[in-house]
């Protein structure tokens, strides 16, 4: 029945959103870097995957780990090059990181345009569907949602249960305290950013399975990620996961009843509506 269908579609879509948002949550929440280039990493990965699977007829799921590693590598190169030197500016670092990634975003989008062109692409993978309990589930959507949610969950567990993850969290909560425990805070920043970029790239691979993507989608995806974080609470992994799923459902519903344009502006409308209704939720996270 319709409501259940929209719900399932929305949740599965939300699964991918969770990964998009959590990867940014790691970068922004843990490292304080306002990564306006987040969407461009997602898009690059998606476009690359589309091109690669078309050229080699390989399964996109095979490409996923490779893209994740490449994304990690790219992040590991960019962090010391562009972001590490901003740390010395203390309080202004957030603003400056916003500016640098703002510039980076335009460079990357331009690069994507030059290399991949401006067309929308998608991958005809797992086009089949199956029906269970009156609900038709697209296999591609299922794969994307499940993998997205799984990777996000792994991130959360990794951060909170492993020694390395705790060291990462410690480095973000007090650099001075962390170095007193022998933690190389500079390296933690590098890993956090690289991991965030790697996971965003993975999200791109998953997303292109279900939504057509082009170079110009980058900004909308960045905004989407930030809106989910804003709604779910910066640094709050559970909140962000819930917000991502809810947004997926909301978009599914709105898209069905009001069409594509409405679906696209929904994140902003929700954000502005929430801001107007509960401003205290949006005070800067301490």
């Amino acid at each position, binding site marked *: 029945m319709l409501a259940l269908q929209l719900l399932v579609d929305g949740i599965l879509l939300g699964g991918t959103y969770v990964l998009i948002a959590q990867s940014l949550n790691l970068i922004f929440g843990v490292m304080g870097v306002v990564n306006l280039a987040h969407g461009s990493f997602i898009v690059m990965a998606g476009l690359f995957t589309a091109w690669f699977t078309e050229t080699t007829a390989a399964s996109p799921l095979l490409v996923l780990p490779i893209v994740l590693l490449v994304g990690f590598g790219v992040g590991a190169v960019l962090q010391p090059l562009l972001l590490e030197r901003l740390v010395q500016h203390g309080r202004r670092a957030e603003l400056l990181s916003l500016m640098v990634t703002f510039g980076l975003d*335009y*460079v990357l989008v331009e*690069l994507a345009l030059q290399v991949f062109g401006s067309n929308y692409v998608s991958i005809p993978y797992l086009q089949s569907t199956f029906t269970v309990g009156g609900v038709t589930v697209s296999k591609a959507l299922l794969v994307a949602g499940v993998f997205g949610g799984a990777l996000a969950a792994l991130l959360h567990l990794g951060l909170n249960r492993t020694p390395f993850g705790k060291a990462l969290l410690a480095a973000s909560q007090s650099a001075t305290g962390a170095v007193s425990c022998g933690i190389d805070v500079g390296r933690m920043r590098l890993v956090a950013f690289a991991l965030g970029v790697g996971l965003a790239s993975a999200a791109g691979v998953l997303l292109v399975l279900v939504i057509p993507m082009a170079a110009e989608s980058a900004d909308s995806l960045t905004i989407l990620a*930030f809106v989910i974080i804003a709604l779910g609470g910066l640094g709050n992994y559970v909140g962000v996961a819930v917000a991502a799923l809810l947004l997926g459902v909301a978009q599914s519903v709105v898209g069905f009843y009001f069409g594509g344009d409405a679906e696209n502006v929904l994140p902003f409308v929700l954000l502005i509506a929430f801001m107007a209704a509960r401003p205290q939720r949006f005070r800067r996270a301490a």
Partner: protein
Amino acid sequence: MATFERAGRGRGRVRRGISLAALVATVLVVIPLAGSAYTLQLATDILTSAALAYGWNLISGFTGYLSFGQVSFYGIGGYATALLVLHTPLPWYVAVAAGGLLAATAALVIGPVMLRLRGILFALGMFGLARILGVVFSDWGYAGGGNGMTLPAELTPIGVYVFAALVALAGFGLSAWVARSGFGLDAMGLREDEEAAAALGVPTTRVKVIAFVASAVLPALAGGLVAWNRSYIDPPSMFDPTIDLQTVVFVLFGGIGTVWGPFLGTLVLMLAGEQFLVYFPNLELALFGVVVILTVLALPGGLVSLANRFGRLHPPVVLAPAELPDAAPPLPHTTAADGVPVLEVRDLTVRFGGLVALDSVSFVIGRGETISIIGANGAGKTTLFNTLTGFIPPTSGEIRFLGRSVARLPTFRRAQLGMARSFQIPRVMAAMTVWENVVLAARHGRQGHRAVEHAAWVLGTVGLAPMWLDPVTRLPPGHRRLLEFARVLALDPELVLLDEVMAGMSREEQENVRAVIRRLPALGVAAVACVEHVIAAIADLSDRMIVLDFGRKIADDVPARVLTDPAVVRAYLGEPQ
């Protein structure tokens, strides 16, 4: 060596002003007369971009609220102009002006909502607004929908140029005024530390909204001019996100938050961009992206900071007289009727989720009293101060200041009424000078009508007069505490709330502060409340001592009795020796 330009009268300034005006006039007049149509168009483009840049700088540079959606107003201006030209007999330049007015009205409505957000969320909100507007106008048939509208093709290149020049000049002039004015000082304080600014009496919401409205008019006028000049508009061109990008790049490159930055950045990058596009068409965006990255990494202060290194284009010290005058202390005066206590707190309770930070606390501070508030960490002392000054809303209870219920008043209003506080960790504004920190408070306090003299007197009293023009970054830590204290005095308060003001001070510094505390009644301060751990430093100054333990008041008496009360000793001082 960073220096600040002294605001003073003098031949130098007048001469500079005149040569500047002459230069401007020459440029304005020569271009349309001697230049080609191409040059005129380029100049017009530069001027409209400069207008956009000044608009952006007003909100993002001066108040620190970064907006990535000023193009919303650009589009509103453009559409308003187009609709007015097409459907009314108004001449084009009136239509453009009307577009500006409309945008200002829209900003007045949108501002209070959007400006509640900080940082990236405000930027996001504005970005979202621009996207929403783009969609709205795409679907609005009356405004041409997705196909846009064509305006009557009247060629008025010189008229457009002149209007654009006037708008750009207005932007420059407005920025120059803001940089020197009390309003600009308020904006800077807000940018540095919004909460501390509110505690000093800055009406933060009002300042933000005014800046926001001003920042909406300039892009709206620019949008109207562009719409008229091109004789065609549609949603993608009017709500084009790259316009925002371009504006941000120009201002950043020129120098964010400065007076000359927006113009210099626009001029240099537009001219360079023209050249660059000849060789590398279609890579404009990548170029701008690279410029942003390089600027942030290598020269975050932009071109203006480069000029600063050569001693040019320094920001003025706001409202600073040529010399620090010898000022008299303020005359004591009060707004409260006789017999009314300065502060009356009744059953004040503050709950955070399950935690009860303050539990039905009640006490009275009478005129002329100095009381100290002691208690273990977590007992609720700072929460009490935060609630009294309005940073935290109380869950229940009453607060009466000078007979007036203040529990619902915003922080800045309480400060203006005469309730001043200092912070545990000094929150002095590092990007400003000592003078500016003090005069900021003085303007909003009860000596606002003679702020300069009062600020001078405060600096002399506290001992910071010799370094009045020093940037705060050069102050050693001990002096920062003094500056914090000076700001409190600058409000000419009736009630002074000092939060662990003795912490980390040497004996000599403590003596200084104690001396000032003793003088406060003579300076018109009706009452003083100190939260302290260094009990020895205030016990002899206190008329009464209040002890908090786990949010509850457990003692309220003269120090001699409090310090020997077994309950207090047990809870706070450890077992009796």
